[in-house]
């Protein structure tokens, strides 16, 4: 489903190369975990997947369902099924969460040539999704992410993901800031989305999340490259021994 080939990308403003020859393949139905030290380029990779303009791809390609997405803008990528749960979700003052959900869902439907959702159907979907994430409907009347606690923001990201039903989900440190109960609720939410036609990429620092969302593959990102890939035992190994061993091997 996702094939990243020898990707090189740099910051447009100052030319600093952040992604340096990265290769990664994620198949449909797979849950892939990406780990790696701070500043190794995990978030940058997620932004590049989503089409952020601050980064420029200088070499390599990103194939999604066999086709390059490099020429697509962020909205086109999103409507084609790529979803990014942000490490730091943005606040959108004055736009009620509910309103935002409606616009996003209907814009995606429009792009697919579908009718906008009828209000009762929309409300039903939102209520069900919010209930499954233990979110209060009252919160959805508030402007999106404005004044939400760290954990509430992460939950709101998963809520959007559930409602938009993407095919490629990228979760950037969705576990950080969540309390123990919330972690379980969010993990259940993600697990519910596991399906043979969907790929999930989980960026995290902690094995704890991977106990709930058990990955099929684990990849270590370091200085803009995947330096080691393995199965879920790799995450356990990292938890026990840190990154030093893996980095040493690669060097």
């Amino acid at each position, binding site marked *: 489903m996702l094939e990243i080939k020898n990707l090189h990308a740099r910051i447009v403003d100052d030319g600093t190369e952040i992604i340096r020859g990265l290769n990664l393949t994620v198949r449909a139905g797979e849950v892939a975990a990406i780990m790696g030290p701070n500043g190794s380029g995990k978030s940058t990779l997620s*932004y590049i997947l*989503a*089409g*952020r*303009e*601050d980064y420029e791809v200088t070499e390599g390609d990103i194939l999604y369902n066999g086709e390059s997405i490099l020429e697509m*803008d*962020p*909205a086109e*990528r*999103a*409507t084609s099924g790529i*979803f*990014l749960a*942000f490490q730091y*979700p*943005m*606040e*959108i*003052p*004055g*736009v009620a969460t509910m309103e*935002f959900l409606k*616009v*996003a869902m209907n*814009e*995606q439907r429009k*792009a697919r040539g579908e009718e906008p959702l009828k209000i009762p159907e929309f409300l039903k979907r939102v209520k069900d999704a919010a209930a499954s994430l233990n979110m209060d409907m009252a919160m959805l009347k508030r*402007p999106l992410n404005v004044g939400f606690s760290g954990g509430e923001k992460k939950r709101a990201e998963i809520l*959007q993901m559930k409602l*938009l039903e993407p095919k490629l989900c990228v979760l950037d440190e969705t576990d950080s800031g969540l309390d123990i109960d919330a972690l379980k609720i969010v993990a259940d939410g993600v697990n519910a989305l596991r399906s043979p036609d969907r790929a999930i990429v989980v960026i995290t620092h902690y094995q704890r999340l991977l106990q709930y969302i058990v990955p099929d593959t684990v990849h270590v990102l370091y200085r803009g490259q995947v330096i080691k890939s393995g199965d879920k035992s790799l995450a356990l190994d990292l938890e026990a021994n840190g990154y030093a061993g893996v980095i040493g091997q690669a060097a």
Partner: protein
Amino acid sequence: MPAVQDTIDRVRKIDVDQYKYGFQTEIAMDKAPKGLSEDIIRFISAKKDEPSWMLEWRLGAYRRWVTLDEPKWARVHYPKIDFQDLHYYAAPKSTPGPTSLSDVDPELLRVYEKLGIPLKEQEILAGVQKTDVSEFEEASDNVYKSGRVAVDAVFDSVSVVTTFKKELAQAGVIFCSISEAIREHPELVKKYLGSVVPTSDNFYATLNSAVFTDGSFVFVPKGVRCPMELSTYFRMNEKNTGQFERTLIIAEEGAYVSYLEGCTAPQRDENQLHAAVVELIALDDAEIKYSTVQNWYPGDAEGKGGIYNFVTKRGDCRGDRSKISWTQVETGSAITWKYPSCILRGDDSSGEFYSIAVSNGYQQVDSGTKMIHLGKNTSSRIISKGIAAGFSQNTYRGQVSAHRKATNARNFTNCDSLLIGDQCGAHTVPYMEAKNATAQFEHEATTSKISEDQKFYVMQRGIPEEEAIALIVNGFVKDVIQQLPMEFAVEAQKLIGISLEGSVG
């Protein structure tokens, strides 16, 4: 207002120019020759069948006006206007009392059609006289099913029709054109006209006093709550005709009225001057809410040909505990010079100003408000949201003052500016002056750029760039949108989206 809603939907589909109301009609005009003189004023007054006191009032204003110079302090630039090169009177040819749409000037109907106005409503706007009153009422019901709105349509200078008169009359509310009011209710007009904006007020208001050709008149008697929103839906239509509206709204003791003003205009090559005057008078315990959505032609992509809008709007909280509230959404015009103000004369009176001013292309907006605190315990609130895109300049200019006797005057001002792109400018010019030590004035101001982070986040959810910007901007102006009546709120949000089209990319 479904008419305006339809118009917007339709306009979205026509992709000709940045501004899409680009058409012009040729209705045989009954108009004054170009230029301004005492004779022209006599011509206007005679055309309107005015009493002699009205003519004298106009002539007084004209004699004053010739001694005045155009104000220069606003942050707007435009070629010098040749006031002798304008027509000061134009009326659509009237076939008095058409009985069906087939009797109405087909050109007029074509304009309505281009605007996407439904047939039933066209009948009302065109003044078709139904012999069967119930049929007429049924038609009106269909048209205004979204809410109760009475329309006073001004086609260029003469009011073409007034609807809902009967029901309003039952409530004792007078809603008619100012010309009709001068003829039918001279005692009210004499008492209130020019009592808020005197003929000597400023260059444009003085000009307006001399030559105004139409506008609305509203009188809500003591204790009456006007049973519906009142609305003027007008367009400017003849080439090079200065549009000089005069609106006078009076709410007697304990009365309440909400008035909506909204308009679109056809595209044209030469600049079109608009200098309206609006006067509001609220007596004891009365409340007037005045909402405007302004979407006049802003000029082409190079900034040529747009409308010059020099407006004087002022409300007088003449009675104790009275309240006047201005809400405006300004998206059009090449130049906007507009400061809806409140004079807080009565004790415990309050004034509000909620404003959204969107500028794109080469538009220049210099707008704001004045809150003049004269009475005791008066309060005012100013919320201004300026959005500048393209090469536009957007200035908020506000004045809050407390008179020596205005104990406990309170003001809260919040003005936020949002910039889209880096070729535009936003400016805030607040003046505050308290001559009474008990005054409490608070002022907050922010200027921000639309953030790439926010835009990226919104687009990541599948919302295309222009919609993403419209969404963020509509969030930014939310506090003001909420002040608008429902019908207008939805319309205004769409209009803001349309106005910002082409601001990116």
